[in-house]
């Protein structure tokens, strides 16, 4: 059927009478690293939360390998297990160690045996450079470390797509780099990613596709080189001028 992993069609979302997203259309293919950029309040995070079904859409559909996941035909939990999410505030489980954080989803959702879950968790923790910390609890490690563990937790589910909701926005400046490095290595390994970000360097240099959102609509999208050097829309140009000169 469809080649696309995710296909968003005519997605709209309103909170009461306030329309946050208006008729969004776009697709995610295997290996895409899509950066969603735009001013605060433009609906970027809401879009990502809709894709992971943390918000219910007002209208529209989300096709996962051609199947609509918003109508309840596909089990929401099973779908979420295949579409991982990394949050701005990490959302690591406070009652579990770093290792257990990366194992619990595999064991309870994917029904992976304990020893295998452990091996897999350590494998991914090693990838993000957090393997030595397996016995620590989330409140004992720094923000950058927490975010790397959160990435490992999502990876341990072996998802097809990974959604990042402003993964570096809650971090101290000196910790942004370590998280971005992990994301770059993921991009290099052809992980399919959808990243809401304010890190323009990441959007320009790492992603394969850039989506600029303004006021709940996709104002412009395309290859990063084109968006950053020669944007068609006046709004895109002004946004980029403002943010790159800041």
């Amino acid at each position, binding site marked *: 059927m469809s080649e696309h992993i995710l296909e968003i069609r005519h997605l709209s979302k309103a909170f009461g009478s306030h329309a946050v997203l208006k008729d969004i259309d776009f697709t995610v293919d295997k290996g895409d690293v899509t950066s969603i950029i735009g001013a605060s309040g433009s609906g970027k995070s809401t879009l990502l939360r809709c894709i992971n079904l943390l918000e219910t859409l007002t209208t529209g559909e989300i096709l996962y390998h051609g199947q609509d996941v918003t109508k309840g035909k596909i089990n929401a939990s099973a779908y979420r297990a295949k579409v991982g999410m990394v949050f701005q505030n990490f959302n690591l*489980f406070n009652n579990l160690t770093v290792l257990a954080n990366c194992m619990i989803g595999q064991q309870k959702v994917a029904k992976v045996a304990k020893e295998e879950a452990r091996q897999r968790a350590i494998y991914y923790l090693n990838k993000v450079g957090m393997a030595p910390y397996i016995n620590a609890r989330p409140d004992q490690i720094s923000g950058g470390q927490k975010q790397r563990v959160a990435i490992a937790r999502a990876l341990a589910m072996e998802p097809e797509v990974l959604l990042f909701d402003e993964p570096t926005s809650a971090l101290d400046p000196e910790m942004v780099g370590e998280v971005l490095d992990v994301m770059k290595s993921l991009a290099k390994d052809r992980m399919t990613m959808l990243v809401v970000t304010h890190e323009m360097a990441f959007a320009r240099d790492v992603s394969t596709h850039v989506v600029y959102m303004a006021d709940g609509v996709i104002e412009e999208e395309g290859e990063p080189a084109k968006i950053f050097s020669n944007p068609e829309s006046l709004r895109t140009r002004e946004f980029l001028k403002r943010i790159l000169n800041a």
Partner: protein
Amino acid sequence: MIGQLFTDIGSLWNKYSSVYLTGILNTLILAVTATLIGCIIGFFCGILQTIPYSPKDNIVKRILLKLIRVIIRVYVEVFRGTPMILQAVFIYYGLPYFFGVSFKDVWTVSIIVVSINTGAYMAESVRGGIMSIDPGQFEGAKAIGMNHWQTMLYIVLPQTLRNIMPQIGNNYIINVKDTSVMFIIGFSDFFAVHKMVSGAVFKYFPSAFMEMGGYLFLTLVSSFLLRKFEKKLAGKPNYELVNADQLVMSAGNYNFPNEAGSPFEEKSKEYEGEGK
């Protein structure tokens, strides 16, 4: 005078020590059992009350959940809003109307009354405890595919238990003391022993003195143990870094279960030639 007091206590103890000790034991058994059952009731009600529902859910589910909330609300308000001593009398004399006189068992009634009382308070504590958990914890669990029950069981309730441990301790200590009102239906707890003994030998103050000391001892020991347990729940203050080499070894032995491979294709084109 002090000397007289201790002489009196001595003679009371010589004669009635086994009665006092049995009283203490009964008090402890009732307080511990009722607190445990009360906690179970409380967690049960707290969990039922916090099942989320939205206007989009089907009508049966919504009505059912609404009904559950109303029933729990009524339960909490009734048992929190009436004196336990009265509830004891009410149930003790009320049950025979429905189950015949054979149900007039003091132990059963005492455990029921104190448990449902504790449960009423705990229901609110647990509800508050669940509401105080960061919504991010729920979202984090949802995002890796957990359903509501898995989220509650593995993520939210362990954190809730830790947060409301002080309230559980509070309830337990209140129970140690307040089970004394069960003398009204003839339960022979520590306080009932005082009524009996002092009535027999007219040594009210020495007996009351012993009771005060006894209750204080029970609650202080309980406080100490509860603190220990809280510390244990909080986990170790330190963690040890694990030797990275061992981890790399074990990680290297791991085979990807799925054909598609991981996002980190070790067998990707770059390495393809080297393996063969």
